């Protein structure tokens, strides 16, 4: 939205709220310098205020500084349209704690301030219910008492929000929940945290992150009074609320035509009866709506958002890229005032757009200007407000597809390999899910390697489980992006069949959902077969508690031929949290025991053929096999191997430890090694 437009809006606001003077105007000079270093630095640069008055009024860039006032005034000024007037007459003495700051510090130019603009900001504050504190009417309060922090990241728009938050969270010593993440128009990213300690910890991360352009990411933070309650409504919806919203949306979705009708959502009976105020102007509501669309019905072709009092498309812009087939959008009967708002959604490949009954429609000189202005944003548009448009001008150039190849199911190269690999997988996981993983010993090569990774913590996932089950695995994670020490890298790589199986034995008990498995065989040579298995498992052991956590995994096996079966030489396990849709379908068929668990058709088919199918040499755990294996590993004869295993309750790993211990002390008689 252009600054000109906003300013116009601001003036209106000023009139409504009336002009007042605010105590914080001159307090700035009284603030102790230590409390906000960047502020003081700027004061110095500025060389005093009031100088060159109005100089900046036409300079958008300078107006949009990284401070709350200018954010409100310039970037989110639109918000004030929501419930406009409800707060218009109240709280006249409130002040903007960090308002009345002149212009952007990036400007570094001595720039006077526009007093009118400051007034506007003030009036907006109170109307917005944004950071204002009625207790300290007209006087600057002691910042030490502020319990929130506001974080500014100059040039934060150079990387994605996800990347930025993730990078900060990775380095930040205190976990945090970003509130109201947004950008100022100079590209500075801003958000609040409701925990001062976290805020300072975030500040510590400054210049420790390098972005993809090779620049150090600077992070500034300032204490901030808590956001007013009205604004807190921007905190994400609860899962229960999302479920209700999902239900309403699904009632409003036509499966056959792929049309989603969200017209007049505020009056939705179902939502109303559940105390959800579906005001699409609120970021939390719009975000949830878009998320539900993206996760459940990304194939929609038509979306009706008419009659929702939308005054801005700021939040709707998140829809771009998530609905590749959307062609028809209705924004009729909203409060859109500025044609430039359409830029935010110009990434949508619209063929039909309805803008009827929005203030912006009457701003154009004539019909032609209107059409060409809209078409500039949507060059493929065929229909505007129900009227056919002249066909778009197109040239036959290869603009690059935006369509990804369809996802296919498992890929096995040929039926013979399919049979071999399916049998292997079925048997492998049957033993893996059993009480005793020792039986896996013979599935591994002498020179086998195993390692696992879990993804770094994701601050965005705060909505899911508080302490996710994955945290247990952190200590095993060999993510080379994080683990840089060579010795530690070696240590986290489990080697030799004994080492690998001993480690696997320590991992929590599991049950794999064979029905969820997808298998890709990606390489085949006479000596090597490489395949990846993806799917879900749940932890079933005592550690897991209830509900048993469900975990998504991808596991790559490199195998060499071993008789009629396969022997693992490399094994890499990546685990992660499952997606919501995965969770929905997980373990949908009851599976009382792993041995009888349901399996996908192809894997199922193999089991009936098991006589002819090549079997993995010995993945069925028996004591006899353990003795053989132990004898091989230790060099002891069968009798002594059995003795050792028996005395250690057939715990292979423990037996191995005891043996190594005794052997190193020379406590094993020589006859034990006579075969």
């Amino acid at each position, binding site marked *: 939205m252009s600054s000109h437009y906003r300013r116009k809006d601001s003036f209106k606001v000023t009139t409504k709220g009336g002009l007042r003077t605010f105590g914080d105007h001159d307090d700035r000079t009284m603030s102790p310098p230590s409390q906000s270093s960047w502020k003081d630095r700027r004061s110095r640069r500025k060389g005093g205020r009031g100088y060159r008055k109005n100089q900046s009024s036409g300079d958008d860039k300078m107006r949009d500084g990284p401070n709350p006032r200018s954010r409100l005034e310039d970037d989110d000024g639109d918000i004030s349209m929501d419930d406009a007037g409800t707060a218009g007459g109240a709280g006249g003495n409130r002040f903007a704690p960090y308002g009345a700051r002149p212009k952007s510090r990036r400007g570094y130019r001595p720039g006077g301030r526009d007093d009118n603009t400051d007034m506007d900001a003030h009036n907006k504050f109170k109307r917005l219910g944004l950071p204002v504190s009625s207790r300290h009417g007209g006087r600057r309060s002691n910042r030490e008492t502020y319990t929130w922090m506001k974080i500014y990241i100059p040039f934060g728009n150079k990387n994605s929000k996800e990347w930025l938050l993730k990078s900060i969270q990775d380095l930040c010593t205190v976990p945090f929940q970003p509130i109201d993440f947004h950008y100022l128009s100079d590209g500075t990213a801003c958000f609040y945290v409701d925990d001062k300690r976290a805020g300072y910890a975030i500040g510590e991360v400054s210049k420790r992150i390098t972005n993809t352009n090779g620049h150090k990411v600077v992070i500034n933070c300032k204490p901030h009074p808590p956001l007013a309650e009205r604004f807190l409504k921007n905190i994400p919806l609860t899962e229960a609320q999302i479920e209700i919203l999902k239900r309403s949306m699904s009632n409003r979705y036509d499966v056959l035509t792929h049309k989603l009708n969200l017209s007049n959502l505020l009056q939705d009976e179902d939502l109303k009866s559940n105390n959800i105020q579906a005001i699409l102007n609120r970021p939390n509501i719009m975000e949830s709506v878009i998320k539900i669309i*993206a996760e459940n019905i990304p194939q929609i072709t038509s979306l009706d958002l008419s009659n929702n009092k939308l005054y801005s498309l700021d939040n709707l812009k998140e829809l771009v890229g998530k609905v590749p087939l959307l062609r028809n959008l209705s924004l009729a009967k909203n409060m859109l005032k500025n044609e430039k708002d359409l830029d935010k959604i110009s990434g949508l490949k619209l063929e039909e757009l309805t803008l009827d009954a929005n203030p912006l429609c009457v701003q154009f000189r004539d019909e032609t200007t209107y059409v060409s202005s809209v078409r500039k944003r949507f060059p493929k548009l065929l229909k505007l407000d129900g009227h056919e448009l002249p066909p778009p001008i197109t040239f036959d150039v290869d603009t690059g597809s935006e369509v990804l190849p369809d*996802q296919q199911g498992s*890929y096995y*190269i040929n039926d013979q390999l399919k049979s071999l690999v399916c049998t292997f997988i079925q048997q492998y996981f049957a033993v893996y899910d059993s009480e005793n993983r020792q039986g896996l010993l013979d599935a591994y*090569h002498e020179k086998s390697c195993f390692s696992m990774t879990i993804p770094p913590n994701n601050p965005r996932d705060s909505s899911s489980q508080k302490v996710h089950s994955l945290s247990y695995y952190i200590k095993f994670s060999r993510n080379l992006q994080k683990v840089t020490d060579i010795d530690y890298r070696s240590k986290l790589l489990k080697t030799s069949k004994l080492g690998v199986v001993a480690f696997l034995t320590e991992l929590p008990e599991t049950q794999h959902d064979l029905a969820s498995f997808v298998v890709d065989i990606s390489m085949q040579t006479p000596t*090597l077969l490489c395949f990846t298995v993806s799917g879900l498992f749940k932890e079933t052991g005592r550690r897991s508690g209830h509900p048993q956590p469900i975990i998504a995994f991808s596991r790559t096996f490199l195998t060499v031929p071993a008789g009629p079966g396969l022997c693992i030489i490399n094994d890499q396990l990546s685990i*992660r949290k499952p997606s919501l849709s995965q969770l929905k379908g997980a373990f949908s068929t009851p599976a009382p025991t792993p041995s009888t668990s349901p399996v996908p058709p192809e894997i199922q088919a193999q089991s009936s053929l098991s006589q002819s199918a090549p079997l993995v040499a010995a993945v069925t755990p028996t004591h006899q096999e353990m003795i053989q294996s132990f004898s091989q590993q230790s060099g002891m004869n069968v009798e002594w191997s059995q003795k050792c295993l028996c005395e250690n309750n057939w715990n292979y790993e423990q037996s191995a430890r005891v043996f190594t211990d005794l052997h190193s002390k020379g406590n094993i008689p020589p006859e034990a090694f006579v075969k």
Partner: protein
Amino acid sequence: MAASDFKIKIAQACQAGEEFQKIYYDSLDKRRNKLSKLYSADASLVWNGNACSGSQQITKFYEQLPTSDFRVDTLDCQPIAEEATNGVTSVLVTVSGTVKFEGNRMQGFNQTFVLAQTGDVWKVASDSFRFHE
């Protein structure tokens, strides 16, 4: 093999994977026409269940995808015992992260490579890619 030798192998595998990962995703995001040089002539690719082979075919496949923006979250590399590779020094590289293809939503992915040393250079012998569901 002596323990220290093996440790060197591990370090080498890690280094190969780290270097590769940087070059690979950079090429994929910005210089897809250079991809063919990263794949060995008889390399194989399985991409979300779609298979193709040969460095030319694979490059062609990738060139048809929408513009991408990859972000790597995890990387893991293991040396592959030479019994399995006819004596060719090879490494298993596993990557996970997120990718945004233009016109599509951001998605998690897992990708597994087998890298093999051929002469002075390392090339991709196999590439397996899946979106996280």
